């Protein structure tokens, strides 16, 4: 059990509308989401502010000024994208468990469609070799991993379709979602490839918007969902295909969530998995022990696994770099989620980039 376990609770969530052309600054978006989260928590002013960004957002000091926070305590702008979506809860909980702050405001704001887009984000110094061959950005990298993953597992495009079709069906009940229409198999098969085996519909929705959370000392909010365990790490895998034994390995192959938490996969009532691409759902389901690898195909086709992203996830709701999935984990534990999982008590939320990332368990007291 981690020393931070149970010490912090998520007491507020706030989001802007998700769009493809906000016409607003990142500061405007961040401020709106933060105000909504603070109002949801019933908090006038946080004493700490954390955000994460890839040079595409607005710093905490500017948001604090816009929120008219007269004094600002601990604040940090953490460089990172999807890897932070779960672990930023750990950063907030550590501040609280260490007695540095009692109320931490967390946000992610971006114009991810109309401004700086992820589809051209650098994948690192290897690009000096890959770009001359026409390979840049995360999609072909994850496509190389996906091709091998399908080969190794025997999963097919029908299973990838099952992931996105389920996501669209659930998003139909989510007024925030950017994609709410069903995706029949014929339509999936007719969708254009970006980089085989990934079609455009296998990729998440580049989004303009912001999401914010309020994390507080659990003693201030005894009924709110608690941060139980947060793990962050990584290792060999798709980030370094030149030397990885398994080029399909992502962060979830390297985290010891159950050892750290004392809980097990059977405890999870709802999983908010970082579904930037369809194939990442089965990969995480088996890495976290939620589905046996040999049962992946059937469980995807029959939708018989633990509920995943009941709001539609990054594939259909939108992509606030994963923090919108974290927000939905909180709603599910409060009982005001989309397609609410009855009685949900334990939520798993994940976030990653390449073979590095994070996972958190949230528990309703």
């Amino acid at each position, binding site marked *: 059990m981690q020393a931070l376990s149970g010490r912090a609770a998520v007491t507020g969530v706030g989001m802007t509308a998700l769009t493809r052309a906000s016409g607003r600054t990142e500061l405007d978006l961040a401020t709106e989401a933060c105000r909504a989260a603070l109002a949801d928590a019933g908090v006038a002013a946080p004493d700490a502010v954390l955000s994460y960004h890839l040079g595409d957002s607005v710093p905490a000091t500017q948001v604090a000024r816009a929120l008219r926070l007269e004094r600002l305590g601990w604040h940090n702008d953490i460089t990172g994208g999807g890897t932070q979506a779960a672990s930023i809860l750990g950063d907030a909980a550590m501040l609280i468990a260490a007695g540095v702050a009692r109320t931490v405001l967390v946000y992610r704001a971006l114009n991810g469609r109309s401004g700086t887009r992820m*589809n051209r984000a650098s994948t690192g110094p290897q690009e*000096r070799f890959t770009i001359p061959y026409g390979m840049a950005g995360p*999609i072909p990298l994850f496509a190389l991993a996906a091709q*091998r993953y399908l080969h190794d597992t025997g999963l097919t495009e029908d299973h990838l379709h099952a992931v996105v079709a389920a996501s669209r069906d659930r998003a139909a009940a989510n007024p925030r979602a950017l994609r709410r229409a069903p995706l029949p198999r014929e339509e999936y098969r007719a969708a254009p490839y970006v980089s085989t085996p990934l079609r455009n519909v296998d990729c998440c929705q580049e989004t303009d918007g912001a999401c914010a959370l309020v994390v507080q000392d659990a003693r201030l909010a005894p009924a709110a969902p608690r941060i139980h365990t947060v793990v962050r790490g990584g290792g060999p895998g798709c980030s370094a*295909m*030149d030397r990885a034994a398994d080029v399909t390995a992502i962060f979830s192959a390297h985290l010891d969530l159950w050892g750290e938490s004392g809980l097990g996969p059977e405890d999870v009532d709802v999983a908010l998995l970082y579904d930037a691409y369809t194939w990442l759902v089965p990969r995480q389901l088996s890495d976290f022990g939620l589905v046996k690898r040999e049962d992946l195909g059937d469980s995807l086709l029959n939708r018989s696994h633990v509920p995943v992203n009941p709001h539609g996830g990054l594939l259909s709701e939108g992509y606030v770099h994963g923090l919108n999935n974290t927000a939905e984990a909180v709603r599910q534990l409060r009982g005001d989620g989309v397609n609410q999982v009855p009685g949900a008590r334990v939520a798993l939320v994940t976030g990653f980039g390449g073979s590095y990332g994070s996972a958190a368990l949230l528990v309703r007291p």
Partner: protein
Amino acid sequence: MARPLPLPSPLTAPYWDACRRGELALQRCGGCRGFVHFPEAECPFCGDSNLAYEVVQGKGAVHTFTVVHRAFVPGLAPPYTVAWIDLDAGARVFGGVLGETRIGGRVDVTFRDVEGFGPMPYWRPDE
């Protein structure tokens, strides 16, 4: 816009110079004897900095590949294929593949003259 070309550095120049001779040359660690590609200043496996280039045969099998249909790089006309290839010599290398391929498909290196740069290694089916 023009296609981006390799920009050889002191570290990578021997790789591209070998291509001009029609050879594939990779760093090989003098300590652990592992092949290192992409080029590094220190061996990622054992930390040795004795990394001389060694000519290798270009035959191997495709480890994984993707056919790029939407390019995020200017000056190349999709669809085209990029791949990681497990060379029989024991190294895993990155490059383009000319023609249809599959995981496990046998390939051999060839050098394609890229305008404004010179020869770059590509692999072609060899079955």
